[in-house]
């Protein structure tokens, strides 16, 4: 047999294994549907955890960015004193940045925030600028704000301030909530994915065990006719890999449809703490990554479980 012919034979055999695997999938329709359904749930959970995780992280970053400590400065503090105060604050290790907001800037911002309240604007324009200048301190870590707090509350610093320091307290609570939710979803997602992946594997395992049992005569005949291990085993593995591929495509399609429906249904763009709009954008921007990851996960689940099942239930050894 020439090398070319052997190569050709290998190709034909591979093609036959794949074809036979696909035929088995159709032939075992009922079992296939069960295996695929559980696999869709598994991959759906993986997809949901993935999106929820990305969305919460994004919300968290956005909120963290907004958190700051505002120190209001008396009008009597001169430029020199102010600059040395800024320098001192910058020396605190947990400080990311310090922005100086002058009286004029503060007034502009205030006017902008209340541009519809004409009476208020009128009242302000008739007096001197009532707003103090301030320093906006952004912390590196929002959970370690105490150091900054201790500094601004020192009596000599306190003496320079016109008002009580503001800590964006309400936002902090929201941040804690979201950070907690993120941790919860990461853990719950992981546990659910592992549990359902195991269930998928067990179901595929059973599906193959039943298929081998149903076809034991045929498999024995093929073996007697000289079929190689892979010729008999291959179709079962191909079948399970197809479960994974089909499930991944369906899971992503379901995810896509749900996202589209949810985005158009909720005008507010966020339900509770879940930012649907961002989740949808993230999903669309990472479409291919998500699809290939789920395909990969589905293929691995299918291949591993069928590999173990065929190893266990197909006997290839000669009896001694």
């Amino acid at each position, binding site marked *: 047999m020439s090398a070319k012919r052997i190569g050709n*034979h*290998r190709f*034909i055999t591979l093609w036959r294994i794949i074809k036979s695997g696909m035929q088995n999938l159709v032939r075992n329709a009922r079992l296939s549907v069960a295996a695929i359904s559980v696999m869709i749930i598994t991959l759906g959970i993986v997809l949901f955890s993935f999106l929820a995780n990305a969305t919460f992280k994004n919300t968290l970053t956005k909120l963290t960015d907004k958190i700051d400590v505002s120190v209001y400065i008396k009008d009597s503090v001169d430029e020199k004193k102010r600059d040395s105060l800024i320098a001192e604050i910058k020396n605190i290790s947990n400080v990311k940045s310090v922005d100086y907001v002058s009286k004029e800037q503060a007034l502009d911002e205030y006017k902008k925030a209340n541009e519809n309240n004409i009476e208020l604007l009128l009242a302000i324009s008739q007096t001197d600028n009532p707003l103090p200048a301030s320093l906006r301190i952004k912390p590196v870590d929002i959970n370690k704000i105490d150091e900054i707090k201790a500094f601004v509350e020192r009596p000599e610093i306190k003496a320079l301030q016109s008002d009580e320091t503001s800590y964006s307290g309400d936002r902090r609570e929201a941040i804690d909530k979201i950070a907690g939710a993120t941790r919860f979803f990461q853990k719950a997602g992981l546990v659910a994915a592992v549990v359902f992946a195991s269930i998928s594997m067990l179901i595929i395992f059973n599906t193959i065990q039943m298929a081998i049992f149903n076809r034991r005569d045929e498999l024995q005949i093929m073996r*007697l*006719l*000289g079929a*190689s*291990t892979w010729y008999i085993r291959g179709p079962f593995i191909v079948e399970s890999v197809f479960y994974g591929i089909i499930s991944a495509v369906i899971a992503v399609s379901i995810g896509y449809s749900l996202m589209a429906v949810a985005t158009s249904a909720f005008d507010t763009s966020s339900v509770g703490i879940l930012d649907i709009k961002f989740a949808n954008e993230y999903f669309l921007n990472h479409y291919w990554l998500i699809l290939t990851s789920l395909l990969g996960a589905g293929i691995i689940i299918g291949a591993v479980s069928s590999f173990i099942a065929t190893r266990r239930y197909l006997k290839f050894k000669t009896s*001694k």
Partner: protein
Amino acid sequence: MILLDRVTKIYNRTNTALDRVTLHVEPKEFVIIIGISGAGKSTLLKLLTKEEKPTSGKIIIGGLDYDKLKDSDIPMIRRKIGVVFQDFKLLPNKNVFENVALALEIAGYGGKEIRHTVPKVLDIVGLKGKEKSKPSELSGGERQRVAIARAVVRQPKILIADEPTGNLDPKHAWEIIKILEKINRYGTTVLLTTHNQNIVNKLRRRVITIDDGRVVSDRANADYSVHEKPAESKVKK
């Protein structure tokens, strides 16, 4: 072609299936193996197809020393030896053509070769025109012919027929034997086991008699004479 040297097969302490069997079969020979049920005929054939391993002794077939073969070589051996079984072992959901084609598919033949070869072999066994029939639509004799076609389609050097006529009436049985002779004339070594006295007497070939795991006689141009001994001694335990 086939060489067995003091081959022993012990299943367990109370069951010795073969006891130091030595025999030699030349290429292109037609050999009949007779013996009552449980004498060790089936075990002998299973050793040749490597469904079983001998407990001791040497088996060399077509120059291949079975001791030196790995489990992964078994498919290669089975593709070189055609086997026909008493219960046909056809796939019920495949038609005649597909059943025969399976043997070629397993060996990696291309579709073109398969479409070319299968009809020729079906013609040899007299099943031209039955390609599309399912095994359930065929008579016992026809089913066995499908099985023979499947066994010889890869042109093996050796054809093992394990009681191929066991489930057939005399007329169909003899047709099957004639097909085996035809295949033998083409140059294939044929090993036939049978209980059928008429067939053995009619064929006048080399007859090897196995009893209680031993070769008790090996005669050329022989008739069926397994009943030389009293029947009681052949019944095991």
